């Protein structure tokens, strides 16, 4: 087993991996950029190395600097987390060349999956179901026109190197094709440095369901059940759950077997995720394979009882999978909310800044993977994911109830977060009825929110406002809107202090 692992990431995932290292008795080395000195992953690490400026290219994406830290610290493996270098085949290869184990698939397996068009060619050979379309990029507008006419509108244009919705265009009719193709190409070129665009039949209101796979380096591959990831905004996942409310045991084993075939066709090892689009008749189509640990891996961990990061590390250390497919069983239901630093009242603009107050939920069935703490300044330079709140229950209803309760306990002050969005989703009638598809969130957000006016709560707020001022609490006292002479405040806090000690004495 490894003695020391370097974590080439930041935020909640760096903390997540660090915890697994400590649980396994492995020392954790972290790297940090100039704006992350005070970040939680640095506070919790055994060793921490600065690697440069805030811009990711100067730090978390800089292969040379990270391998230099691996050498200096004597780390024998690198966990890339998700994002940053996690799906970079060059990095995996560079680790290999430097004699440090990359915790993930081989560079060759990543390469096979990195391009959507190349992955498609390999998978078609393995008999994996696809949405009708081209498996190569279209060369010209004329070819695009021809293909679209053959498969029928609506069609979807997608960047071969794409992800996160960049370089994607939905085309309803032939007259929209030309401008959509140009826009998709230039966006793909700008985002990925590769303008290759391919065409697929568009599935209207699909579900997005993905299958977790795990493969050791001895040829054993298993699937660990699916995750329903249909709740997305701007093609970014917002809430995920496992199992999917529409997948039964039969569909699960069919999807799982396809996912295993996908992994084996690419000689895949370690943790990976095979994404599918599912149409309204529950037909599923291969979308892509993510060659890393997913943000939403905790929901799978909760319903399988497995620790995916422990398993990733053990697989990378050369161990065989410690169980077989028939040993995997799914129990209960888990839902994850991605807590982002963004402002729901202002079109979900990012909202970095200082966290002045943090009240975190706990209690039965609640897991919180967080990279933030009170007093920390959320930097503007990175993805706005602060934490993940995951609810687990015997069934979906209980998971929702526990998550709703936990969200009511969760408070992040000083910056804006999307916590209120989850309260709204969880009480939505369609969500509760599990009527989910990728258009769900956009439709829900278009409807006005029914906020019952509550004059009693306003009265409470009015009284509290005066109390905060009288007691000299920080947020209320700071800034020009507040009042209260300093002598009054001192007097009030002093008598408060006396009161408290009087109460203590009475215990």
């Amino acid at each position, binding site marked *: 087993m490894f003695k020391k692992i370097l974590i080439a990431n930041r935020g909640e995932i760096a903390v997540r991996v660090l915890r697994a290292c400590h649980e396994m008795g492995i020392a954790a080395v972290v790297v940090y950029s100039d704006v992350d000195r005070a970040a939680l992953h640095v506070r919790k690490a055994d060793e921490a190395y600065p690697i440069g400026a805030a811009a990711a290219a100067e730090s978390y994406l800089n292969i040379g600097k990270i391998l230099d830290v691996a050498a200096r610290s004597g780390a024998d493996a690198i966990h890339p987390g998700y994002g940053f270098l996690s799906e970079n085949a060059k990095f995996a290869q560079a680790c290999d060349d430097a004699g440090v184990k990359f915790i993930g698939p081989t560079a060759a397996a990543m390469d096979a999956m990195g391009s959507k068009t190349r992955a498609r060619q390999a998978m078609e050979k393995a008999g994996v179901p696809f949405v009708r379309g081209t498996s190569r990029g279209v060369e010209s507008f004329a070819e695009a026109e021809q293909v679209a006419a053959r498969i029928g509108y609506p069609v979807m244009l997608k960047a071969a190197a794409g992800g996160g919705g960049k370089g994607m265009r939905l085309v309803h009719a032939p007259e929209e094709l030309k401008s959509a193709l140009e826009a998709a190409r230039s966006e793909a070129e700008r985002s990925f440095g590769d303008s290759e665009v391919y065409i697929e039949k568009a599935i209207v209101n699909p579900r997005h369901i993905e299958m977790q796979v795990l493969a050791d380096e001895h040829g054993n591959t298993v699937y660990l059940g699916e995750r329903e990831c249909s709740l997305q905004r701007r093609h970014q996942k917002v809430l995920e759950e496992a199992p999917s409310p529409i997948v039964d045991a039969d569909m699960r084993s069919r999807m799982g077997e396809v996912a295993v075939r996908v992994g084996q066709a690419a000689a895949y090892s370690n943790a990976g995720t095979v994404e599918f689009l599912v149409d309204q008749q529950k037909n599923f189509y291969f979308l892509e394979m993510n060659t890393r640990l997913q943000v939403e891996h905790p929901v799978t961990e909760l319903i399988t009882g497995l620790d995916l990061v422990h398993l990733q590390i053990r697989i990378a250390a050369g161990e065989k999978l410690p169980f077989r497919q028939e040993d995997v069983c799914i129990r209960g239901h888990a839902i994850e909310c991605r807590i982002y*630093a963004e*402002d729901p009242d*202002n*079109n979900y*603009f*990012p*909202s*970095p*800044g200082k966290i*002045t*107050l943090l*009240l975190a939920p706990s209690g039965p069935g609640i897991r919180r993977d967080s990279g933030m703490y009170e007093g920390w300044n959320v930097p*503007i*330079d*990175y*993805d*706005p994911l602060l934490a993940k709140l995951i609810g687990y229950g015997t069934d979906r209803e209980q998971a929702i109830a526990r998550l709703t309760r936990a*969200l*009511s306990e969760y*408070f992040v*002050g*000083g*910056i*804006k977060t999307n916590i*209120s969005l989850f*309260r709204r989703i969880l009480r939505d009638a369609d969500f509760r009825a599990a009527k989910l598809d990728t258009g769900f969130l956009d439709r829900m957000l278009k409807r006005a929110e029914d906020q019952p006016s*509550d004059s009693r*709560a*306003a*009265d*409470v*707020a*009015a*009284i*509290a*406002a*005066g*109390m*905060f*001022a*009288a*007691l000299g*609490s*920080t*947020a*209320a006292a*700071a*800034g*020009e*809107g*507040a*009042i*209260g002479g300093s002598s*009054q405040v001192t007097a*009030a806090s002093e*008598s*408060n202090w*006396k*009161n408290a000690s*009087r109460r203590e004495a009475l215990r």
Partner: protein
Amino acid sequence: MVYDVTIDGKNYRLDLNRVEGRWSCRLDGRDVEVDAVLARPDVLSLRIGNMAYEVKSERVANDLHLWVGSRRFAVEVRDPRSLRGRVRAGDEHGPKKIVAPMPGKVVRLLVREGAEVEPGAGVAVVEAMKMQNEIKSPKKGTIQKILVSEGAAVNAGDVLAIVE
């Protein structure tokens, strides 16, 4: 102590006094039985009668927010005896500042000084946390002044431009 409290545009007169460790409270002339414990800075445990509430307080940019349960109230507190109380101009007429809603970098200016804009027209693009966000004009008018240049770093609340 007398406080004038404004919550979502509604005014309250609050009279709070503490005698022998007990609060007496009058809200708009009504007596209210209140007991309060500051559990920690910015967190108040309030009993009104026998109803219990936890109220959280935060300041975002220049606004004071109080949260009662999951409901947020924008609050202003003034001491009527103090001259420091302020009145906010909710005036739709006259020049209007277009401010950065979050810290970030101005990546693009979409208008020039003197340009005519419609409400909702993009004025600047500010990038933060790998997202580009278009900052829009709140009203129809002329861009009187642009106070930032492309590439500039801005803080939340910084004025980007003025539209009249």
